[in-house]
């Protein structure tokens, strides 16, 4: 086996683990929000430390691979992708933590209205992140491209919920506190979906050597 192979496998394992933990975090905050389970959301905040540690480990390992193994071609693109993606996943996890903090406030207040579109937005975001991770681990560019396209659904739901929340708050100013907390939540979910898109863009770079971010193909 090539010497670099063991390092690249280790990188892949760590990215996968980081992704799985973050996927759990998204799942738990969405569930905590919909089921009004604050305890569940607190777990997300405590579990975040492990994700931060993994990011540092991946940064170090990827840097070591660059310096000591001097990767080229596919190996180089994989290493760059891991380095970049670890930062993206960490930010997704941070958004989950931020949602968990908003849940503390939201769940202490009476429900604003029955959630219909919010769980939908949460589910699509979670699925997008899951699929982006799978595309990364398996190098599946088709899945990456399909996932990028789903970002529109999340954006549409964001606008829909945003408008609804504004309407509710305008009608009844006592709901402003809960309403604005929920506005933050949907913004975090929307950003998470963006990050899933960024991971998919990295998958396309990794597999095809094409940089599609900030290009029409990214949309």
């Amino acid at each position, binding site marked *: 086996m090539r010497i*670099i192979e063991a390092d690249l496998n280790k990188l892949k394992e760590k990215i996968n683990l980081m992704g799985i933990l973050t996927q759990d975090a998204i799942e738990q905050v969405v569930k905590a929000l919909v089921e009004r389970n604050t305890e569940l959301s607190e777990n997300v905040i405590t579990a975040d430390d492990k994700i931060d540690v993994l990011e540092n480990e991946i940064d170090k390992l990827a840097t070591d691979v660059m310096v000591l193994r001097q990767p*080229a*071609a*596919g190996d180089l*693109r994989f290493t760059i992708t891991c380095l970049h993606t670890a930062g993206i996943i960490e930010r997704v996890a941070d958004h989950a933590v931020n949602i968990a903090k908003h849940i503390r406030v939201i769940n202490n207040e009476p429900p604003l209205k029955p959630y219909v579109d919010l769980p939908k937005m949460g589910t699509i975001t979670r699925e997008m992140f899951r699929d982006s991770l799978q595309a990364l681990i398996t190098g599946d560019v088709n899945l990456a491209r399909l996932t990028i396209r789903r970002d529109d659904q999340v*954006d549409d739901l964001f606008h829909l919920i945003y408008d609804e929340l504004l309407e509710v708050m305008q009608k009844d100013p006592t709901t402003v506190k809960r309403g604005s907390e929920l506005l933050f939540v949907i913004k975090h979910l929307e950003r998470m979906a963006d990050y899933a898109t960024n991971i998919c863009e990295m998958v396309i770079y990794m597999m095809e*050597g094409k940089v599609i971010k900030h290009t029409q193909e*990214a949309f």
Partner: protein
Amino acid sequence: MLVKNRNMENTSLESKEVKEVKEVKESKENKEEAKNLKVEVEAENLNFFYGEKQALYSINLKIPEKSVTAFIGPSGCGKSTFLRTLNRMNDIIVSARVEGKILLNNQNIYAPNVDVVDLRRRVGMVFQKSTPFPKSIFDNIVYGIKINKLANSRTELQQMVEQALKQAALWDEVKDRLNDSALALSGGQQQRLCIARTLAVMPEVILMDEPCSALDPIATEKIEELIVELREKYTVIIVTHNMQQASRVSDYTAFFLLGQLIEFDETEKIFTYPKEKKTEDYITGRFG
């Protein structure tokens, strides 16, 4: 990305300023491309034989002028053989036979009327092991100038020596001891002296066959810096086993395998996203 109507958004973002920046960038890129496309050396359907054994198969390659091109590939792949066809160094091998053409500025160097001595002045060569003459530093440089009758006076001769040594980044180290033996120089200095000797006869192309393989990292770095500088005035073609060296110094890279040219492209592309699986396998160490 949170944009309701992306097409509209993109159009409105395309302000006059943005368009202008894009146009300037495109025009620069086109100029770059046009510059790069000017071919200095071209191989046309080149086959090469050592007696019965074929060493190169139908090589077609266009090397742009004023650039550095690296030839990479495993031992015995034909990269050095191909390099030597570019100034007919293989002619001295009795059993060697060439089919096809090598064009230097559109002229076939294998045409019957070609003066091989003049060809080797125009296409200079630096070897793996430095090959200084057992003479003084000054005489090493002067040798080719005198043979080719390139200087009209002693003053001009001295100027040419100084210029060649400066171009080879050796002048500051030897200017006070030009009459010392070239053999007293360090390995790296000797190699730069050989480069200076090549430059002194005003070549168009410089061929380098693993010029750093016998040097330590510091001497290697000096030669590499020199190669990058030489690109401004000369077309440099280098054979190297060191892929990091190829990626550091070259603009274009050609990958050879079993006598065939597998891939030729910009170095950046070869090392980040090669088109051919064989290239990828070689540069990632999967074989060779």
